[in-house]
């Protein structure tokens, strides 16, 4: 999944810290109520399917107009082709006035003018998208996750030389050149995001059995070492 290459750059600083560790975009609880305005057309959560509008699982980080089988406006498809990706920033703009961002969108909604309401709604939606713990690869999360990680663990300074040795295990599947041919790229990640992802596997919050097994026996120092090594891998 390519979007995770830029996801940390676009909102790692705001969302990674805020959503994972609590406070954030807005109040997701209030957002639940605001979502009732959207419900007549959009579904979200476990088993959500496309209705009048596309389902909204995994919206964060998704390229606009790319859910298979949904008939988007040409305008929305073109926006995606042109590089529109749904982030907190772009969704905020779209929700404020859909037609200002995608001129001929079929979304027949006049917009949410109240910034706090948009923030609350985004916080609600964010719970159904990949979080930094799902980086770099995971199925779209339809349930909220609950990663317990001591912030001190994320401050461990990894030894890149040890990381290079340990990375041998990763490179049997993940290509060191950063290509993605069915197994995602893991190079050049911000160290913290890399570490969060590995701890989420270790805690079996992320679903992939191979990665749960691989991460399961890595110590905090080893995860930090891998993060330090892959961060700079060309």
């Amino acid at each position, binding site marked *: 999944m390519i979007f995770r290459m830029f996801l940390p750059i676009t909102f790692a600083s705001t969302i990674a810290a805020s959503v994972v560790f609590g406070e954030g975009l807005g109040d997701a609880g209030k957002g639940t109520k605001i979502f009732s305005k959207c419900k007549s057309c959009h579904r979200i959560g476990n088993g959500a399917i496309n209705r009048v509008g596309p389902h909204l699982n995994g919206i964060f980080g998704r390229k606009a107009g790319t859910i298979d089988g949904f008939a988007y406006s040409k305008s929305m498809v073109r926006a995606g082709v042109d590089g529109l990706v749904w982030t907190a920033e772009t969704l905020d703009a779209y929700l404020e006035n859909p037609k200002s961002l995608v001129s001929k969108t079929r979304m027949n909604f006049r917009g949410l003018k109240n910034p706090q309401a948009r923030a609350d709604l985004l916080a609600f939606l964010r719970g159904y998208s990949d979080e930094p713990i799902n980086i770099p690869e995971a199925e779209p999360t339809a349930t909220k996750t609950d990663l317990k990680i001591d912030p001190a663990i994320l401050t461990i300074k990894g030894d890149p030389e040890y990381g*290079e040795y340990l990375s*041998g295990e990763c490179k*049997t*599947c993940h290509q060191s050149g950063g290509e*993605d*041919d069915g197994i995602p790229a893991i190079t050049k990640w911000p160290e913290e995001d890399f570490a969060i992802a590995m701890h989420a596997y270790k805690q079996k919050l992320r679903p992939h*059995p*191979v990665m749960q*097994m691989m991460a399961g026996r890595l110590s905090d120092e080893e995860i930090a070492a891998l993060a330090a090594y892959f961060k700079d891998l060309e």
Partner: protein
Amino acid sequence: MKMNRRSFIGTVTAATATLSAPMVMGSGKPRVVVVGGGAGGATAARYIAKDSKGGIDVTLIEPSRAYYTCFFSNLYIGGLRDINSISHSYGTLATNGVNVVHDWAIGVDRAAKTVSLAGGGTVPYDKLILSPGIDFVEGAVEGWDTSAQNAMPHAYKAGSQTELLKAQIMAMPQGGTFAMVAPPNPFRCPPGPYERVSMVAHLLKANNPTAKIIVADPKPKFSKMSLFQEGWAEHYEGMIDWIGEDFGGGNVSVDPAAMTVTIDGELTKVDACNVIPAMKAGHIAHLAGVTDGNWAPVNAADMSTKADPDVYVLGDSSQQGDMPKSGFSANSQAKVCANAVRGALTGSKVFPAKFSNTCWSLIEINDGVKVGATYQATPEKIAKVDGFISKTGETAEVRKATYEESVGWYTGITADMFG
């Protein structure tokens, strides 16, 4: 088998291979010689050359110029891969500091620390890494020896044997019979024969839907058995007859001239037959005197042999403990070994051994399954730490994702081996 692995290619290449520069040593640098350019040997050579940054002279002795991976060769049989897509050259390794010598290693003098070559001459080493894959145990299947491998291919060293087997399956008459004689434990790629049965069934389903598949197996059970049996019932109903140990599957003889297979006294005329005999370490490991019985016992911490601390054995040929004989395992062991060898020769830091393995198998298009585990070095052996296996009844979406992941893994591991 008289020679070591891939002799079906090597009989040609060995004669024509000319020996190039690697005899020129004397640079004062420590010397590592690797015999066998598969998942173990190519990886070890690449990592030692790469990580020592020219500080170690690395020579890889491998008779074949094109290496065909055994993994994914069943997908070629099933028609899902081109034979060229599983072929790899040594060009990138050669341009990245590995002396690649296309010749046969025909002897090891452990006292003089040299390897002798079929093309003449010897190559000196400080550390020798043997990764010669498998050879077959003589007399393992009554009526079969390697002289019969054209009539009844083993196709368990990928390349021309694989192509031959596929051609014979394609030439079967409508409603004909394909037989497989499966090997006893331990053998290369535990799910391999059963993935092959699946891929043969896939091929026949499209081209010869009334054909039958008989598998004579000396084992009572096999890797991923419930997953394969579920898949066979779902995709190839009534086509595959697996005869395990309980039904005399181990009591088998073949007649390659008459094309018959006799299982527990019952003779069957077959149209194509894949004989996968019992296996042992590649020939050079036996010649080096580091084997005990069929395999070469090694120390788990660094893959050095119990017989000689300067000779290491990787992959299928090694007797290491709990890891299955697989390309993934050999690649994993090679990196532990490379780290230890480099440390011993240059004083670089040696990190503790960690091993892992995952084996993907394809049952039908987009129906992939996997099994895997992690391992650690103990004083006795490589010991399993944790593992997982695909579950029966998984959704088509999960199986498709598993298959796609295996395709990604193939690209990843071959890049890790050959650069």
